[in-house]
């Protein structure tokens, strides 16, 4: 696997498409145990990102991702803006001036992104947040790389782990974000942010395999 600058932009635009398609779905998930705006927030954010990159995408992968993160931060508000924004900015910092990345780079970038999310949101595994999709995905990716799987296979593992994580959020009590006000009543419902994270992994995987 090797992804260049243009491909990164393509992937981000595809993420924007997928978010748009799932706007209602994500919003409905958030309505049940949150405030019903996650799809709207993400759609607003990625719409702005698409416009931003059209106008000035930056010179290298680091730039692209930092611009993506900053645009998310500046346009979303709420919880997901700073979280996804920080994730993309940290990934961008990690990528630096690279014009091409491979699966090992991706693993490092994802590690930085997850660290950023945890630093910003103070959530840990089992708090019923996006961390419950991202952290298992990162573990699965790392393990697959260690086991010598192909990048394609490794990414597939990550996507599967993310969706397993999403599924698991149904079983647990929310301890961070708005859903935490519901305490026990949050059980049985899937976390919206974890779902959007899994959706992003799936989009990346699909785009790498086209």
């Amino acid at each position, binding site marked *: 696997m090797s992804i260049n600058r243009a491909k990164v932009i393509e992937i981000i635009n595809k993420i924007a498409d997928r978010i748009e398609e799932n706007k209602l779905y994500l919003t409905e998930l958030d*309505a049940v145990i949150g*405030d019903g705006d996650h799809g709207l927030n993400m759609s607003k954010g990625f719409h702005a990102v698409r416009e931003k990159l059209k106008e000035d995408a930056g010179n290298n992968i680091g730039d692209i991702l930092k611009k993506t993160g900053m645009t998310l*931060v500046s346009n979303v*508000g*709420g*919880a997901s803006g700073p979280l996804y924004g*920080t994730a993309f900015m940290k990934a961008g910092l990690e990528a630096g001036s690279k014009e091409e990345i491979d699966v090992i780079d991706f693993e490092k970038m994802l590690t930085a992104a997850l660290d950023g999310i945890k630093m910003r949101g103070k959530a840990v595994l089992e708090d019923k947040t996006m961390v419950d999709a991202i952290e298992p995905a990162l573990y699965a990716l790392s393990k697959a790389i260690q086991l010598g799987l192909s990048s394609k296979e490794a990414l597939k593992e990550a996507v599967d782990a993310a969706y397993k994580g999403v599924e698991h959020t149904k079983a647990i009590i929310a*301890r*961070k974000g*708005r859903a935490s006000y519901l305490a026990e009543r949050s059980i049985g419902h899937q976390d919206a942010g974890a779902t959007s994270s899994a959706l992003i992994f799936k989009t990346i995987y699909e785009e790498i395999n086209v």
Partner: protein
Amino acid sequence: MKKLINQPENVVEEMIEGIVLAHPEYVRKLKEFNVLVRKNSPITGKVALVSGGGSGHEPSHGGYVGKGMLDGAVAGDVFTSPTPDPIYEAIKAVDGGAGVLLIVKNYTGDIMNFEMAKEMAEMELIKVDYVVVNDDVAVENSTYTAGRRGIAGTVFVHKIAGAKAETGATLEEVKETAQKVIDNVRSMGMALTPCIVPAAGKANFTLGENEMEIGMGIHGEPGTHKDTLKTADEVTEHLVCKILEDLKLKDGEEVAVMVNGLASTPLMELYIVNKKVNEILWEKGIKVYKTLVGEFMTSLEMAGCSVSILKLDKELKTLLDATADTPAFKSL
């Protein structure tokens, strides 16, 4: 959706314009941002206070910009935290060299966006600190969770920290006073009807004709439980008892009371609630030093109210009494 609005996506911007047109003697708007600052900002040498959050809680927060309260108020979309950019702009516009205190309500989104703005301002060498208001006793406080929400008690923080800042106190001192208010104020609310976020166009929860939600948050977040309609006295008793369980007041102590309307509940009903609050406190030997009754932190057109009780000491009493002159809160 029965609202006096134009396009749902423009409500915040049009409101901010309406505020500036109504109160040009108090506030001005930062160009391109939904931020209101004191007309004469920055005030050299004075610690500046910035608050904000999602819109839909008017007069919070723009109504409290003025002498003796806030220097800046940042308005996000309805019920959505503002992004860091306008907060950062507000900080820059109000800093008079003595630093800026951010007053943040305890919601994940608010905290993260205000923190990011703080980091941005610190890169410009502006002294910034923040306090987090978490007065809502309806939500359990636990180290494992996001903790209690910030609701109407925040207005006491604005008033008292604002008065402290006017005395020429340092950022550390203003923060300490703000934190003292936070440590001593507890609130709890209830709702009779839901409300409608303009962009959504429909209520995001429902209450039966004979139902109310006890412990309701100011964004329609669920409270402790649904209950059948009760009398004002019973509802008030429940709210005040939950507050007192947590605040642990002793006989002879003095408090300030705020009976806050969420929007549709008439002042008549708020005063009926206040009567009962007084009776309960009186029975327990607690002295009411000052009472505020009105709409201080609303929730769009929701019907319901919250009660806040602030335990006072000498400093807090003096600062609570100090002059304030803002569009929505005046104290002579």
